[in-house]
């Protein structure tokens, strides 16, 4: 593109030249000679023009535009190369953008509270009982509030749920009962109305704050909802406020908040542990100082209440760490993996560009001769890279939202469930930066070598290629190493999932449908009423075709890690704990049979264990082995309270341990009781149905049965038991799937890199190979020489990758189960897989080398 400035400079040069010619003529030269000498002295006019333009500040814009046009033209002439480059980049940049969206939403952005880094969770530390972060008891919370000197506020929440009726279809809502300072400790304001007062909490006023989600879903965002009443469990509750959309605390499925309203007795009890406690640090107080202070307070409480608190200390955890758990490591590992895939892709493109540069030697030589400067050639090559990466990046950004949906299961429950779905400005900036950086990365090496070659090319024909080839060797080694590292990561997680799945659960999870029919305590006041409801539903369900058995239980396996109860075994031979507790599960008499528990000793609960019959309890193997070693457990008496007037249960059976607390958590003693033999406060709202058919096919008929028994009764959490189990490892599964995806992509790209390198090598050396064959080299020797090069490169990359994995895999340790981070089986099989794939990638070019026809090859030059 010519500009007026170029014309101006052209005129200046012509005038310069003319002055010089005039001088030369005056000095006695012939006009022709004078002109020749003057031109020689001026040097390449074009080169001078280029240099002046380079100096001029805005010329680069013209040049950039020219470079882009030129790049698009050259890329059009190599559509296969361009397509491969663009697709690879789109995958790499898309993956990185998707993962970054999760990293941004979960790790980078602050939590939606005021000064969120000053918030901490306070847990009871009952590590000795298997609960390093136990939910505090109200009595301890009350004492912490009174005794601590490090918090400006300390709030407690407890679970709640209610059936809402009277304004549409009955629905079971998830709620939290909270102390009145809960919202002020977090520093959040309602969008409509207000939160509770301390007075309302003390009086037990029926006031409720609802979530933004419930407000939109059930009340169409009508602001007049404030002041109206909701029928919750049959009582009228007044709505006083609506929380903002961004407000979640620890769970993103909470519909409402009500005052916790501790009675004086509740506020003092220290046996039942069920609170979540969140506190705000006073200015200047560190986490460590708060933790030390709370441990001091818990020591005081141990002395004051030795019967309940002897094993209880406290632990203070920053709220964000508490919410993130393993997620931080999971996301960082994925981010690293995605970045590695992009780097491998860049290495491939760099390698491809290098070989293209080699084949465009004459083009470059012409451009140099025409006066293109070295800087200009480098810029041209960079422009080509940036054009590619811009197109790839644009495509990648377009596909990123698809990948983002795959990440949803990695989002901890304490984050809004739509946290990831936004493709916002930050994400676009990230995609742009990723595109530019990768474009520069993969074109800088070829660009530099192009320029270097252009300057030495005129002298020699062959030496320039050696350096390029060595560079490509290094790139392939890097690719193999990086692919191996990713494969090791994916392999370790795959083994972990295998180990988790191989755990004996103690029950049969397949072919079971579960759902919840949470009975409102206000409508089903008496246990007898509840039993009648449960039995009427069960009778009808058992009659459905394909149903083997059906029962109600309090907490299904994998639903709760706690809900334990103190116990005492009369005549126990061993007493390992001062304050023994057992998981307590209550059900209708068929419960254990429906789960498919295995009897080790005695019998399961059955139709004998009804009201009025001798009180029966089934215990698990852990309890029998730990407290009654060497004797038969059956026949021993157990009580669940120290007071002598409390009922005594007789052990009628021992079952193989049922994994109540999920795959990975340690086993605890467990007791199973028959609902009909218990007191008035008991519920068993989870329905389990074992069937020989697809469990979910029973969902609709069972819902009709429930509606027939009680039309106002909502149903929730309809899922197969398999799905419930999967939730426990959903994040690991997702992590594994993504890592496996990245690792396969890396492996694929690395093998393409290897294949491309060797193909290029064979193509370049066709003549040499022809000569060698003509001179009597066997085809086997030719194949071996090409294969040998591939194998050598693979071996170097493999060794480097193994070393890096060996060191780096420790970062994964927290995500693994039953596998060491340096598991030799994983390392060996991954190395074998990679060797196999790379051998396949090398074989094609090697075979082509063997098929070289010496006559054709020699004629080619």
């Amino acid at each position, binding site marked *: 593109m010519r500009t007026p400035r170029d014309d101006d*400079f052209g*005129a*200046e*040069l012509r*005038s*310069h030249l*003319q*002055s*010089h010619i*005039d*001088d030369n003529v005056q000095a006695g030269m012939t006009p022709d000679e004078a002109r020749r000498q003057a031109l020689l*002295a*001026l*040097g*390449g006019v074009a*080169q*001078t023009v280029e*240099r*002046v333009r*380079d*100096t*001029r*500040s805005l010329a680069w814009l013209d040049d950039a535009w020219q470079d882009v046009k030129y790049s698009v033209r050259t890329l059009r002439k190599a559509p296969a190369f361009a397509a491969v480059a663009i697709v690879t980049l789109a995958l790499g940049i898309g993956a990185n953008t998707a993962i970054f969206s999760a990293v941004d939403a979960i790790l980078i952005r602050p939590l939606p509270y005021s000064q969120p880094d000053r918030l901490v969770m306070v847990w009871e530390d009952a590590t000795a009982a298997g609960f390093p972060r136990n939910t505090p008891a109200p009595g301890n919370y009350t004492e912490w509030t009174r005794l601590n000197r490090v918090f400006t506020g300390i709030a407690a929440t407890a679970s709640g749920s209610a059936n809402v009726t009277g304004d549409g279809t009955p629905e079971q809502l998830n709620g939290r009962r909270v102390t009145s300072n809960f919202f002020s400790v977090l520093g959040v304001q309602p969008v409509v109305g207000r939160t509770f007062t301390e007075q309302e909490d003390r009086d037990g006023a029926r006031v409720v704050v609802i979530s933004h989600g419930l407000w939109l879903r059930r009340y169409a965002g009508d602001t007049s909802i404030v002041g109206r009443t909701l029928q919750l469990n049959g009582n009228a509750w007044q709505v006083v406020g609506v929380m903002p959309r961004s407000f979640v605390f620890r769970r993103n499925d909470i519909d409402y908040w009500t005052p916790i309203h501790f009675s004086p007795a509740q506020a003092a009890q220290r046996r039942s542990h069920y609170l979540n406690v969140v506190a705000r640090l006073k200015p200047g107080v560190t986490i460590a100082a708060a933790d030390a202070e709370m441990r001091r307070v818990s020591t005081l409480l141990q002395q004051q209440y030795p019967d309940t608190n002897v094993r209880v200390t406290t632990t203070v955890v920053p709220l964000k760490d508490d919410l993130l758990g393993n997620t931080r490591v999971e996301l960082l590992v994925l981010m690293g993996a995605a970045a590695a895939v992009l780097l491998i892709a860049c290495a491939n493109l760099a390698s491809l560009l290098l070989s293209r540069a080699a084949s465009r030697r004459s083009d470059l030589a012409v451009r140099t001769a025409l006066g293109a400067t070295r800087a200009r050639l480098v810029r041209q090559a960079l422009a080509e890279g940036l054009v590619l990466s811009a197109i790839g990046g644009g495509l990648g950004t377009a596909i990123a939202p698809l990948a983002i949906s795959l990440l949803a299961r990695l989002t901890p429950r304490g984050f809004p469930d739509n946290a990831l779905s936004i493709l916002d400005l930050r994400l676009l900036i990230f995609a742009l930066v990723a595109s530019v950086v990768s474009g520069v990365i993969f074109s800088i090496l070829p660009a530099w070598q192009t320029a270097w070659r252009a300057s030495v090319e005129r002298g020699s024909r062959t030496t320039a290629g050696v350096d390029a080839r060595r560079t490509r060797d290094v790139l392939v080694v890097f690719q193999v190493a990086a692919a191996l590292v990713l494969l090791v990561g994916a392999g370790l997680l795959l083994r972990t999932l295998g180990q988790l799945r191989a755990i004996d659960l103690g029950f049969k999870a397949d072919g079971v449908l579960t759902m919840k029919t949470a009975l409102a305590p206000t409508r089903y006041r008496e246990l007898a009423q509840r039993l009648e409801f449960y039995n009427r539903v069960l009778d009808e369900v058992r009659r459905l075709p394909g149903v083997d058995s059906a029962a109600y239980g309090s907490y299904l396996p994998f639903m709760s890690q706690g809900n334990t109860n103190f116990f005492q075994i009369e005549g126990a031979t061993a007493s390992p704990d001062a304050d023994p507790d057992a998981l307590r599960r209550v059900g209708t008499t068929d419960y254990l049979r429906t789960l498919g528990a295995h009897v080790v000793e005695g019998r399961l609960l059955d139709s004998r264990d009804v009201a009025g019959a001798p009180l029966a309890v089934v215990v698990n193997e852990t309890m029998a082995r730990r407290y009654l070693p060497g004797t038969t457990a059956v026949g021993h008496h157990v009580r669940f309270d120290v007071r002598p007037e409390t009922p005594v249960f007789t052990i009628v059976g021992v079952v193989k341990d049922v994994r109540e607390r999920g795959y990975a958590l340690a086993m605890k003693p467990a007791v199973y009781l028959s609902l009909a033999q218990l007191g008035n406060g008991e519920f068993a709202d989870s329905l389990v149905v074992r069937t020989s058919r697809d469990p979910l096919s029973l969902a609709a008929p069972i819902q009709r049965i429930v509606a027939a028994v009680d039309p106002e009764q909502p149903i929730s959490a309809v899922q197969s038991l398999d799905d419930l189990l999967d939730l426990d490892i959903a994040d690991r599964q997702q992590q594994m799937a993504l890592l496996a995806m990245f690792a396969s992509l890396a492996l694929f790209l690395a093998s393409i890199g290897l294949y491309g390198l060797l193909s290029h090598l064979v193509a370049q050396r066709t003549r040499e190979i022809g000569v060698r064959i003509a001179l009597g080299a066997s085809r086997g020797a030719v194949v071996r020489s090409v294969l040998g090069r591939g194998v050598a490169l693979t071996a170097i990359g493999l060794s480097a990758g193994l070393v890096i994995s060996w060191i780096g895999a420790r970062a994964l340790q927290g995500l693994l189960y039953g596998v060491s981070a340096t598991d030799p089986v994983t390392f060996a099989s991954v190395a074998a897989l990679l060797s196999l794939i790379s051998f396949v990638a090398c074989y094609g070019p090697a075979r082509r080398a063997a098929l070289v026809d010496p006559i054709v090859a020699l004629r080619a030059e």
Partner: protein
Amino acid sequence: MGKTDVWQGTLALMILKTLETLGPQHGYGIARRIEQTSGHKLLVNYGTLYPALLKLEQEGYIKSSWGISDNNRKAKFYQLTRAGRKQVEREAREWNETTAILAKFLSPDEA
């Protein structure tokens, strides 16, 4: 002994000094003058002269305008600006200091 190319950093100073001495001058004239002043020991590479002129103009030390040369040809004339005059003084002083220091280093009896 062949002719030496002008050292990169010193070309700008030579241009400025030439313009201070001769007044407005075109590129070819500046080059000629530098070569003459050096007793033809220096050779001005025109490929570096014009970028250097442009740079000085961008920095505001010189300005240019089209005029008529001695032998009646249209040519672009460069002349010092006020900032350029100060720059000559400053650079000349620094250069003298530098050479004085170097001279001390290089004179054998001071070693």
